Structures are given as C-alpha cells and as structure tokens.
C-alpha cells in the first residue's frame, strides 16, 4: 500500500518535471502531433483563420487545430469535465471571457512567461478589466446614415436627439454586450460615473422610442435598410461595407469609444497548455495581427503592427487613439446582471 502511494507520488513528480521540460523545449511537444481545440468566430474572420492562419500554425507547431465555430461556447465548456475540457483556448468577447473566468473555466492570469508577445501589447489588452489576453479590439461608437441630412454625431448625447425618435437603434441589453456597455456609459455621461446605474436607467428612458436588436449583424442590416438612421455599433460593423457604396458611416464620439475586446484565454484542465499559450502568442505576432486586422477591421492589440494606410487611418493603433478606448468592468456588471436585466426589461417594455 505504502509502496503504491509513493509510486504514484513519483509518477506525479515525473509528470511535473516533464511538463516543465516541455515548456523549456517546445520542440518536444511538437513531435507528438497534439490536437489543439479552440473556438473562433465565423464569417470573414473564420475564412481567414481556417484558410491561412490556422494551417500555418498547424504546420509550424506540428499539431492539429480543431475549430468550434458553433455558439454557444460557454455552456458547452461548462458542461464538459473540468479535467478534460472541450476547448483548450476560448475565444470570446471580454464580457463572456469574464464569466468564464469567474466560473473558473479559464486560467486566472496569463503573463509574459507563458506568452512572450504580451510585452508588445498596449496596456489595455491585459489591463485589470481583461480576463486573459486581448488580441484585437473594436471601437463601439455611433453608426449613422449619410443620406438623411444628419449632422455627423460628435457626442454620444446626439443619439438622444428628439428628431431620431423611433429611428435610433440599440440592443436587447440582456443578451448583447454592446447594449450593456452602452448602458454603463450612459451612467458616466448623465450621472456620477460608469457605475451610476440609476442615472443610466433614466437616460435609457429618454432614448425611447428606440429600435432594439439582438446582435450587431441585425444593427448593420437596420442601418443598411434605413430602418435605423443612427445606432450604437462597433466600427468594424460599418467599415466592413467599405467600398460597397453604402450610405453609412461610423462616428467616434468625443467622450471616447467603448472597447469591444476579442480575448483569448486557456482552460485550466487543458492537456496541451503549452501549445495553447503558443497559439495565443502566435495570434499576437505582427504578421498575423496585420492579416486579421485588415480582413475584418479589428484594431490590433499589438503595438508593433504596421497597417496599410487605409486601415491605419481608421483603426485604434496609436497610443493617442488607444487612449480613447473606454473599458468596461465586466466583473462588476455581471455581478449585477440579473437585477439590471429586470430593471431594463421594465423600462424598455413600457
């Protein structure tokens, strides 16, 4: 009996030693042709990922990547065993990533030790508002029609213009993080700060009548169909129609833009952690950052990316521009989500 325990202890020690060894010498892990299970977006992003980024990654790291593009990621991750998680790397918006972090579904902290490229990032990308590592961000501002005689909005408050009654667009706050960030911003604009929910509710009341959608794709369509002439939307949702002659434009309000971060994090039970960190590091490489940023109009989180002028002009990739980004404390918000949802439902129903 005693012998067996000590043998198990020995095995554990050997395992740990091996693990450290692997981190020290990544090529050992590569030899095993491991499988990395990740989530990622679909659409154009998915095309570039599956078409170019991931094949190159697989080749370099001699592994296989299994990509889940089917929502919902979090419940699936939650339902799988902690020691055999269904994903190794979770790609999610900051909000959702926080929920995963609070539930212990992803690791608490990632540092330069595991992901060396973190040192190249703007501070917001690994700030205390982020659970994991931000690889890109979008800027949430106001999208508007250019053919309806509107003065381009300069302030978030322009959305409350009475002329826009019934033609302004917002989100179903319980299901959409753009709507949630906007709500918190209202507290800052009209009250004592981001956490002044009472002021936010009052301001939200003032925005009625307002057209509400579930997800950003719908907001794009509403703008394109002119059912909404001004609405809350992220820059990439407008810029993706660039060159298609659509009469829509993005405006960054003077008070700043809300950041909509794309965050990666690793599951604690992952059997290929070093590969998972390697993947995050890979996603932060300048060439990968440039390729994806220019494909979907996301602002790269890495300081060392040189974008083509067209993108450079619009995306948030200088210290000055990055200073415009307002980050949301999702942990704070998520703790109050049920209460907020109930309150908001009452406001928006009536």
């Amino acid at each position, binding site marked *: 009996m005693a012998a067996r325990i000590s043998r198990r202890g020995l095995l554990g020690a050997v395992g740990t030693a091996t693990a450290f060894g692997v981190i020290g010498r990544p090529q050992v892990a590569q030899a095993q042709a491991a499988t990395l299970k990740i989530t990622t*977006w679909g659409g154009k992003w998915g095309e570039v990922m599956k078409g170019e980024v991931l094949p190159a990654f697989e080749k370099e790291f001699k592994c296989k990547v299994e990509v*889940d*593009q*089917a929502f919902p990621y979090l419940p*699936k991750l939650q*339902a*799988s065993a902690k020691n*055999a998680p269904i994903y190794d790397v979770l790609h999610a918006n900051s909000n959702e990533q926080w929920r995963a972090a609070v539930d212990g579904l992803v690791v608490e902290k990632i540092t330069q030790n595991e992901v060396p490229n973190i040192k190249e990032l703007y501070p917001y990308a690994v700030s205390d508002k982020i659970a994991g590592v931000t690889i890109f961000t979008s800027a949430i501002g106001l999208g508007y029609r250019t053919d309806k005689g509107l003065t381009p909005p300069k302030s978030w408050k322009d959305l409350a213009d009475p002329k826009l009654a019934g033609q302004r667009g917002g989100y179903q706050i319980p299901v959409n993080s753009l709507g949630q960030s906007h709500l918190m911003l209202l507290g800052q604009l009209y009250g004592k700060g981001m956490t002044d929910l009472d002021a936010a509710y009052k301001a939200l009341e003032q925005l009625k009548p307002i057209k509400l959608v579930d997800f950003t794709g719908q907001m794009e*369509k509403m703008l394109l169909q002119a059912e909404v002439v001004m609405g809350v939307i992220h820059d990439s949702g407008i810029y993706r129609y660039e060159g298609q002659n659509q009469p829509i434009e993005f405006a960054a309000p003077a008070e700043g833009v809300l950041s909509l971060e794309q965050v990666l994090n690793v599951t604690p039970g992952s059997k290929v952690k070093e590969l998972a960190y390697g993947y995050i590091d890979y996603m932060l490489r300048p060439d990968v950052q440039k390729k994806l940023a220019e494909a979907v109009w996301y602002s790269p989180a890495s300081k060392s990316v040189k974008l083509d002028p067209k993108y450079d002009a619009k995306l948030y990739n200088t210290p000055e521009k990055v200073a415009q980004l307002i980050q949301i404390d999702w942990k704070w918000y998520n703790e109050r989500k049920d209460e907020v949802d109930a309150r908001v439902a009452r406001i928006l129903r009536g």
Partner: protein
Amino acid sequence: MRGRRASLGQRAYLVANGAILFFLLAPLAVVAVFALNPTPFIQFPPVGVTTRWFEKFFASAEFMGSLRLSLEVAAAVVVLATLIGAAAALALARGGLPGTRFLTALFLAPLMLPAILTGLALFQALQLAGFGRPTWALVVGHTLVAVPYVMRTTLAVLSDFDRRIEEAAASLGAPPLRVFFEVTLPIIRPGVIAGSIFAFIVSFDQFPISLFLVTPSRETLPVVLFNYMKFDLDGAIAAASMVSILLALAVVIVIDRLVGLRATMRF
C-alpha cells in the same frame, strides 16, 4: 334562397381558408424575395433578381456538408423514431402494462422539456461518459424529441381503433403476428406515417438539440445557418432557407408517394 345562403357561407369559408394560407405562406414569400434580391439585406420593393445567393449557398463546402449531414441524420431519425414511437404507442395502448399513464407521460416528456435543456443534458451525459460528440449522439438527441410525435399520431389512431377487428381476424384463423401485419399495421399506418413525416421535419429543422451535439467538423444546416447569420446576414441565409423548405417538401411528397399516405388516409 337557401342555395344563396350556402354559397355565401361557402365563400366565407374560402376567404377564411385563403387568409390562413396567406399567413402561412407570406413569410415564405418574404424569404423568397430576400433570396432572389441582389442586396445583402431585405429591400422592398426588390431591386432586381439574382441567383448569386443560391450560387453562394451551393458553392459553399460548409453549407453543402451540413446539408448532407442534416439529411443523413434526419433519415436515421425517421427510421428510429418511427420504429420506437410506433412500438411504444402499441405497447402503451395494448400492452396492459402497469403505470401506463406514467409511461405515456415519460415518453412524451421530451416535448414538455425545452429542447435546449434536453440537448444540454445529453451533451453533459456524453461528456461524463467520455463519448465525446459522435454523430450518433445527434441521431439519438433528435430521435428523443421525434419519438413523441410518432407516438402521439399513432396513439391517436389507436385510440379509436375497434379491437374487435383484430379479434375477427384471429377468429378467422390468423395467428397474432399475421393479425398485426395484416390488420393492425395497415389500420394504424396513416398515424405512423404522419408521425414519421413529423419526425423528419423535427430532425431536419432541429436547432436547440443540435446546438450542443454538433462537432466542429460536423454541423447540421440549422446550426451552420445560425452561426452564419451572426457574422454574415446576407441572402445566402434566405437561399438556404428556400432550399431546405423545398427539400422538406420534396421529402414529404416522396414519403407520400412511396407509402401512399393519401390512399391510406381515405377511410
């Protein structure tokens, strides 16, 4: 006088039917317009006619693969759900089992439960058992929610089934198995077939359950459409909807032709 009133009533009946048909078909018409319109969003009146969304749909390996998977799964589900549902209905209606009511409720339970929970529960069970997410899990999940439909339709036929008919057959010398195949089965057939058509549609359209059971390389059409919509809301969605509606219709017609739903419905 009387003839006139009858024709008025008849007209009202036709108008009512027309209205119902309109409400059923109007969304389809919208989808069709969207599918054929060149703009990537719904525009009315349409600005032209294009087949580009259909081309995009048929050219996409992802759409085609998922369509194929959906059809394969639905085919398996139809067979399984029909066998299980009909057998269960027979056992419940005929078996004289103790706790028949409880068992009926149990079999129909997947209908009461939100399908998303059924999917999640199944997913969790598979994860715990270490099965991962094999394609058969998808078939099992769909079958679970399709069986109640077959059961319901079969039970409905069985409930006004005169058992004397089977007794008559037995008294004429038919052993139990022949009674079943020569009398029982032909009489309950319309119910079973109606159920199997439901089963096909339930599986082919199934979203909540598939949501958890699809794997990265094998996703069913509704799941692919849902995720596609999150990133690219364009006419390809409408084209895909058109195609799946037409396919479902085709399958119903084929089942009808093959097993003669209408012929057996006649009595």
